[in-house]
């Protein structure tokens, strides 16, 4: 498929779920009642993605609060601290490694199975990467960041194996923290290597909001098939780097900014995709998606942003097929430049 569309992972929770989560935290509702609503919201998002024609779906993470805390809450060895600010007006309950970390049971597999049961299109298995879990937690137990990170890598690997067994064709391991300390890039690469070792499913990692110039092109050796990047927020500045050192993996192309309320127009997004087609080698597979998870947007904004991604990708496919004949596969397609 040429220019398949997808999304990065999280989607906003509908009001009834936000309310139920708040009630649950005050012990005014049961775990089972909350889970029912989480399922309902997941189903609604799967239906929406089907309706607008997204090619590779996500479950939307209706059952997760924060991408790191969710995993920590479901592992042995973590305590959860109080609220810490991440940016703007957003806070998360930052985990603390307090003793040896163990996975007691699969964490995301049942949710993957549920979401996949609702659609014939592929649903991605979504994991947070070992380096990010380590970097975004406090450490009161491990001797070094390396020990902590590699331990988490083993756990992410176990989870990836279970997702693959359950049928996941795509396993995404998010590593937004990876650019924070360029001197630790090798550690992050080693850890992702442990997590993805032996996995036959397509593996990908999502990276965002960092100083990419310090880790590129070294980051191309991250052992995954695809790297998904936030590009719109930074006005596609990375393209300069790509012209110097060609990108060698499949790329997830962030074409809408997830931290702004305004919805990009189809024309804007078409221009962004066309620009990318001029930058990447012809044979490189490009996936079109938003910059990052959309959970910080309202439901309506998130829907509009997803819709514009799909419509713009479709438009570019049409432009190209008008110009060059039917777009069968990207490798045989000339690019716009």
């Amino acid at each position, binding site marked *: 498929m040429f220019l398949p569309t997808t999304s990065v992972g999280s989607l906003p929770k509908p009001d009834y779920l936000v309310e139920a989560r708040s009630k649950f935290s005050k012990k005014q509702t049961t775990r089972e009642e909350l889970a029912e609503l989480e399922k309902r919201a997941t189903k609604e998002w799967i239906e929406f993605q089907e309706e607008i024609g997204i090619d590779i779906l996500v479950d939307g993470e209706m059952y997760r609060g924060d991408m790191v805390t969710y995993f920590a809450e479901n592992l042995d060895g973590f305590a959860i*601290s*109080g*609220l*810490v*600010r*991440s*940016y*703007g*007006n957003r*806070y998360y309950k*930052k985990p*603390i490694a307090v003793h040896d970390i163990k996975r007691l049971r699969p964490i995301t597999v049942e949710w993957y199975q549920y979401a996949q049961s609702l659609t014939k299109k592929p649903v991605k298995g979504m994991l947070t990467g070992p380096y990010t879990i380590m*970097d*975004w937690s*406090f*450490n*009161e137990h491990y001797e070094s960041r390396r020990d902590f990170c590699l331990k988490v890598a083993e756990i992410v690997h176990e989870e990836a194996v279970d997702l693959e067994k359950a049928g996941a064709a795509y396993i995404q391991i998010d590593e*937004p*923290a990876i*650019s*924070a*300390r360029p001197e630790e890039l090798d550690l992050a690469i080693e850890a992702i290597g442990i997590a993805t070792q032996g996995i036959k499913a397509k593996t990908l990692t999502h990276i965002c*909001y*960092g*100083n990419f110039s310090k880790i590129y092109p070294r980051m191309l050796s991250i052992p995954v098939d695809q790297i998904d990047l936030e590009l719109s*927020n*930074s*006005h596609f500045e990375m393209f300069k780097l790509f012209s110097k050192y060609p990108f060698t993996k499949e790329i997830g192309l962030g074409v809408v*900014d997830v*931290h702004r309320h305004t919805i990009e127009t189809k024309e804007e997004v078409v221009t962004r995709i066309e620009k990318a087609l001029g930058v990447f080698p012809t044979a490189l597979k490009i996936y079109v998606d938003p910059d990052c998870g959309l959970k910080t947007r309202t439901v309506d904004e998130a829907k509009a942003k997803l819709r514009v991604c799909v419509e713009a990708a479709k438009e570019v496919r049409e432009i190209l097929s008008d110009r060059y004949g039917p777009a069968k596969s990207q490798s045989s397609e000339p690019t716009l430049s």
Partner: protein
Amino acid sequence: MKTTVAGSYPKIGDLTEEQKLRHALHQFDRHEISEENLQAVQEEVTREVIQEQIDSGIDLVTDGLIRWDDPLTYQAGKILGFKTTGLTRYFDTNTFYREPIVATRLESRKPLLASDYQFAASVSQKPVKAVMTGPYTLAKLSKNEFYRNLAQLAYDLAYIFHQEAIFLEEAGCSVIQFDEPAILHHPQDWQLFLRVYEVVTTGLSKAEKVLFLNFGNLGELYPKICNIQVDTIGCELTKDHPNWKILKSASFTKRLMAGLIDARNTKMETEEEILEIVHHLSEIVPLEKVSLAPSHGLEFLPRSVARKKLTLLAKVAKSYQETKVS
């Protein structure tokens, strides 16, 4: 030996009554409350966090940077010529700032932070320190689309910060702190940095000027950093931090703001550990020239842990004084 904080204080805590700012910002974002309403909440929270610092036993407090969205955009938003763009990670943290863009020549027609200082001072029983991200770091982390080079940008900012220091002194502020983490990562800009601070502090004699250098170690900037025109230099001095070795390599000639308590990890230091660290400090600089502080702003910690760490810091300072007296 006095105690102080590095700058920021957690904006919210875990209790419902500690979350009013988060709530107000959400409402403001949805146009449900006015800017005046939001400011009232910011003032209320500022008042609370000042009181928390005082209750923890801190001698020199800050307004907690409660109004600041991130270390750059609050100030940049008050300087004409800046606009802001996308999110970028702040050093090696998992917090972000919106990158300021220098679009036209920078100028500032009114005080940036003096009114915040005045408010804080009016509600605090302890002296209040004004904290700002310094001109070099602001210049370095901004995207320059106007000036011919970094030096020109930094000099214009230096004049703006000089004027700001005058405003703060006139408002009665006795300690002004400039955070300059970026210089640790770009020591090659040392000559420029030195000149920038000549401009910033020249002719100012009323307030104590503090240069705070965190998110790294002093490295090759030491000992020449002692030539800079400020009274106090602050740096990270948590247990086993590389700065310990660096500071011992040459004599330290300024007052020292020692970032002893790890503000980026919840793990609690013990009183004994901190006392031992203080003892090591006395080998570097006479303790009467030292103030004790956390290694960073406290925003990286949950509020409950920040409180505990400050209480410990104050306790150590107190028990050290007592041992000295006895």
